[in-house]
């Protein structure tokens, strides 16, 4: 069952379409960003990361874009599949902090068959 995400923003997409999930971060001193995927009843799973010296990074079917000017991060999922349905959230690390991540509350992605 869900204990997270009762009031989360939701993105509903058709299977096969591309998904774009957005995240705004608050601190210009953040130098590292991670996207996590959390399926119902499971722990967060690492998807992709990006450092602040990059604007874009690609993985398998996923791309992360970083816009430092407006402090915005996005996750693009190509050809969205039913297995992509989950809550996605970003995390940021402040420069100089060796361990501490600040987590967003997340976006729920629903994939319609």
């Amino acid at each position, binding site marked *: 069952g869900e*204990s*997270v*995400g*009762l*009031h*989360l923003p939701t993105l509903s997409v058709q299977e096969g379409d591309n998904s774009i999930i957005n995240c705004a971060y608050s601190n210009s001193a953040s130098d*590292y960003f*991670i996207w*996590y995927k959390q399926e119902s*009843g*499971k*722990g*967060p*799973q*690492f998807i992709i*990361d990006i450092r602040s010296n990059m604007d874009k990074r690609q993985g398998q079917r996923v791309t992360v874009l970083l816009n430092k000017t407006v402090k915005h991060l996005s996750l693009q999922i190509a050809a969205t599949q039913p297995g992509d349905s989950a809550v996605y*959230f970003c*995390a940021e*690390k402040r420069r100089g902090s*060796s*361990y*501490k*991540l*600040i*987590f*967003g*509350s*997340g976006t729920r992605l629903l994939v319609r068959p």
Partner: protein
Amino acid sequence: NAGVTQTPKFRVLKTGQSMTLLCAQDMNHEYMYWYRQDPGMGLRLIHYSVGEGTTAKGEVPDGYNVSRLKKQNFLLGLESAAPSQTSVYFCASSNPTLPSADTQYFGPGTRLTVL
């Protein structure tokens, strides 16, 4: 590798009872963390450890204690449970010496209900 494991998966306590949540990782990671996750909120750090024998307070440490007697284990204790501690608890670990040093890997979670 099993990664990060947590026991138990579920637990129901009465107010005032105590319990210990166990986290184990087999990745030889130096850093370990305990978070709680509540509806509509991001993960909040309770306590963390940067090595065997060391622990430190996170964002929401009150009502919890931790111990890291072995590198692979990180225990979270509730001495006197309160309904406000009803939550899902996640353990995570990371290795500061790796290229992806800042990435934290999570366990499956423990769902705790305090009545």
